[in-house]
Each structure stands twice: as C-alpha cells, then as structure tokens.
C-alpha cells in the first residue's frame, strides 16, 4: 500500500506491505524490515534493523503525532487519492497576519492592546491565566491590531481567537 507522508510541509511517498507485526517499509530509495507492535493504545514498539524504539503515537486532527526520545514529529499520513484532494483544496493558513489563539483553557487576566494599536514584534497583547500562571501572549509580527475579541475576566477555551494582528504593508 502506498501512503503519502507529510512532514514539515514536505510530502513523500511510503510503500508499506506486510502485517501482523512484520512490515516492509520503503521511503525514497531506502527499505526497512520492521517489527512493530502496539504495546499500549499509544505506545508502539519498533525493531528496525535490530534497534529498539518505543514511539508515542497519538492522532490529532488527522495527523499522527509521533514522540521519539523527547522529540515530537507531527506527521500527516494519507492515502494518495485523499492527499491529492486535501492539498488541491488549499490550506487554511492565514495570509500573513497573526491570529492570536488561546493555547489552553484559562481566563483572560489582562488585555494590553486595543483595536488599531500599533505593535512591535514581542509586545505583549494579552495575558491568560491558567494553572496559576500568568501567560503573556506576544506579537509574532510588527503590525496593527485589527481585532480584539476578548475582555479581562473572560474564560477562554483552546483555539479561541483572542486578538488579530495585521502586519505592516
């Protein structure tokens, strides 16, 4: 079976065959014989050329998040047809601006900017209180604050858009 793996925006084709714990995996011109077993719902033991790894594998929004020796690899894996549909539909990336989203559930403890403010890269936009810490969310680009969607005291959930910064032209 051919699968398209996308790592860091770069797509490659993997050819995988086998089953019941034994697989042959081809990637580019390299081929591995792999003995792979899920020893828990999220832990995969791999023996690759005799070397033993235990990967942490979870899925997040369709992508496989693989943790290995303290590093995290987000990997999208698609059947070739589906990959081509998904990529032709175009990505969802915002065009240039910064959508400042709540990274975790919490409460807005301070809003440092107003709509129309000019900000420099690194300026604090919003402070979110979560797990007893004040977390400052900062501007990733210099620009103009085009929207402020929260007020102090308001609870927020992960992914909520708090502030939008449009870059200088």
């Amino acid at each position, binding site marked *: 079976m051919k699968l398209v793996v996308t790592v860091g925006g770069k797509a490659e084709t993997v050819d995988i065959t086998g089953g019941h714990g034994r697989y042959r995996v081809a990637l580019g011109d390299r081929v591995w014989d792999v003995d792979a077993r899920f020893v828990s719902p999220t832990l995969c033991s791999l023996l690759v050329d005799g070397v033993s790894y235990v990967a942490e594998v979870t899925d997040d929004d369709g992508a496989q998040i693989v943790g290995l020796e303290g*590093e995290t690899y987000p990997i999208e894996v698609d059947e070739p047809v589906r990959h081509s549909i998904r990529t032709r539909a175009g990505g969802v990336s915002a065009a240039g601006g910064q959508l400042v989203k709540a*990274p975790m*559930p919490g409460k807005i403890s301070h809003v440092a900017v107003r709509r129309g403010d000019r900000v420099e890269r690194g300026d604090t936009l919003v402070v979110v209180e979560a*797990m007893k810490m004040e977390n400052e969310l900062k501007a990733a680009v210099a620009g103009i604050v085009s929207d402020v969607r929260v007020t102090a005291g308001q609870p927020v959930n992960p992914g909520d858009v708090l502030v939008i910064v449009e870059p200088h032209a």
Partner: protein
Amino acid sequence: MKLKKLLVANRGEIAVRVIRACREQGIATVAVYSEADRESLHVLMADEAYPIGAPPAGESYLVIDRLIDVARSAGADSVHPGYGFLAENAAFAEACRDAGLVFVGPPPEAIRAMGDKTAARKIAREVGVPIVPGTLDPVESDDEAPAVAESIGYPVMIKTAKGGGGKGMRLASSPAELPAALRLARAEASAAFGDGAVYLERYIAEPRHIEVQILADDSGEVIHLGERECSIQRRHQKLIEECPSPMVDAAMRRRLGAAACKLAKAAGYVNAGTVEFLADTDRNFYFLEMNTRLQVEHPVTEMVTGIDLVRAQLGIASGERLGYRQADITWRGTAIECRINAEDPFSGWLPSPGTIRTLRPASGPWIRDDSGIYEGYTIPRYYDTLLSKLIVWGEDRDIAIDRMARALGEYRVVGVKTTIPVLARIVAHEDFRAGRLSTGFIDRILPQLQSDGRLAPIAIIAAAVAEYERLGRRPAPESEPSTLHAWRLGNRTGWRGGVTGT
C-alpha cells in the same frame, strides 16, 4: 499527643506525600477536594474524602472555615497544610489552634515573623545574617515604586511578601519595565496567596540559589539537615534541585547551617522550615527568605540524610522531641529532583492541561517518583502544573546525573506536554555535569535545546504503520458490545490484537 486522624488541606502530589506518611504511622487521613478534584489521586488514596467547594482555590482550598468544619465533623485532631494554598497563612494556623486542631507546622507567631519576607529580612539584619539590599517593608503603592527602585538600583526584583515558589516574582531591568512587572507580580500574588503585597530587592546576576533545611522541636532544639541547591530555575520557578550543592563544602555547610539555625531560633520557629540564600561564586551568601513549611524539593534532603521529613513534622507536631542531634545527621551520596510539569517548554512553557493517556513512570534502583497523577487522569486547569517529582539518588553526583538521564529517558507521559524533554537536555549538558549552575542557566542554554530531527525516518515508519493498520483493519461495527470495559473493547476491535497477531 499522639495524632490519630489528620486532615490534609491540600491536593496533588504533596497531599499524596502526606497521606503516605500518615498511613505509615497509623494516622487516618481526611482528604478535601474541590469539584474539579473528585477523581484526583489524593481523594483516591485517603481514608476519607469530603467536598469543599468550586474549582477555583479561592472557593475551596483557601476557605479556612470550610476546612475547619470538615476537620471537626470528620473527627480529625490535626491538619497538614502541605505547601502553597494556606501553608504560610498565619490566620489558618491560628484558626486550627482555636478549633483545637494540631497544625502540622510552625506556630502562627513564627509564620508571621518569618513568613512575611520583609519582617524576616529585619530579623536577619538584627541577628547578623547578611541580606540582599532592598526594601524592608512592602511597597504600598505603584507611585512610590519608581523612586524605591531607583534607590536600590536596576535591575530590581519584585517579590511577593507572602508565599513563595516563584509565584509573583518579576524582574524589571529598567524604569520602563517596572509598571508591567509590578502589575503581573501583584496579580499572581493575589491569585496565589490572597495578598498582593510586594517588595523590591536588588537583582544579583547569575546567583546560585542555596537553601538550608532545618528542624526545630518545641523544646527549642534546632538542627539543620544541610543545604539544597535550586539554581536551575525558569522565571523563578525551580525546575531541578539537588542535595548536596556541588558548590558547598563542609565548612560552608557549617556556616550556612549556623546562620539558618540562628534565624529559626530568633523567630521562635518550630517544625520543619527552609532558609533560602543567594550565593555568589566566592561562597558569600545572603539571606533571601524563610519558607515556613515543607518545600516541594524536600525529597532530595530525605534521600541523602535518610530522614523522613514528613514523619519528623508529624512527630514534632505531636509534641515529641526531635530524636536527632546535629552530630547524628550525616550525608550520603547525592540526590537530584526534576519537576515534571504539564508545560510545553518548546512553546513558551505554556501550561498543558489535558488527559493522561499513557503514563509509564521511571522506576528501578534509586528512583523515587512522588506523583499526583495516574493514567486516565484529567489534569484540571485550575491548579499548578506540577505533575510529579522525579528524584534519584546516587553514590556520587556523576552517578546521580547518569541515573537521572536514564530515568528521564524511561518516563513516558502521553496526552499532555511536559518538561521531560528539556529536563533531559539540561541534565545532559556539560555545564550541568560540571556544576556550573546559576539561576540564568536555562535562559542561557535554551537556544541549544532545539530538536535535531535525527529520528524522523523512524517516526515516519511508526506513523505509516499506525495508519496502515488503521486503514487495513477498520473493523465492521459490532452489533452489540457485550461489555463496556474500554480495555476489552480496544482489544476486540483489533488495534492491538491485529498488530500483534494474537
């Protein structure tokens, strides 16, 4: 008075630590829990457990009357405050005393004398222990702060007068940074300790954080158990602690210990406490503050001295003599503690609440895991990020470091981001090995801690196998599951079974 039943006025790993110590001494335990903590480990482990209110600490763990009520109705004779929350709140210690409950900690007078950092600095000056230049009183209003800061000299540290653990500490490098730093420090201090009072202190660049554990009984006997070094910090939150400090020799240990005991005696201190110092490279040290409670990092002292500090606390609180003299205290080997926090060190150390999907703590020789979580547990968003303290002991510091590296490699937490990867890299760093520690260590090495992507091909293989099995083995829906146990369902629908061929 032999304690029979103790209420633990805390949650998380420290509540578990206290419950374990009580169980080992035949003292029954009463847990309390907010609505967010019904399934927390301390509730599962205690003998009894009672609800005390809504998730925010101000509506549960900080409500003195409710805690006293529960203690009374459950028939408890004593209260252990843990650390944080009400641990350094003299009014709570007083309320316990008034209710006829033994408070496992110092008397309210000593909490007031030493727990208030500005008052403690005055005592230190009186008994001749050196202090860092700064204000001896809280800064009342933000208006007077700039002048005070100017007189101390920038950079200045803003510190909460109450509490500890780095909460409410902020650095201002210049007059421009002062207002924001004051505001954040006050906000954190209010949220964490119910008191927004702060004071200013001169900032000492790249200092080392050395603290001394003391024990005092109510006969006036005071001994010290040596120092801990806690220089590996981020935003004044300790991340790695060790005992002994690689910079402290026997002579400096004696000087530190004597200073700590002198302060404790001057304050009429009873029970376990910690005297914090900043040290410079010439082995000068300056009194910073006293923590009138058990410290998060107490286990490293325990592993090296062999003394169970919570057991000692309970003994002292029940009126026993210490049972150790200074000459009985010996130090064997080195212990290191790493704090495993639910934070993402690669995304600005943001908190990472969520559900622990897989948990495989490190174990084996000389590994101690003081944890407050379990597999399947959902970390509430209301409390601090500490999940577990991983402690190792080794015959010497090199062995302890090697063992910590091994243990961090074993420790698996899936479902939330943790500090484990960055801890592993700190421990592997040559400056850590060489004992070149300072409170600026993490900021200095953080840029070197980025990913090298070395195992990307293996990660791709793992992801491909997972997806291949998912696609190839998508099961027909079962008409009716005969059991609802998740484990069985999982097994039957083929994921593990399919892959393992059983």
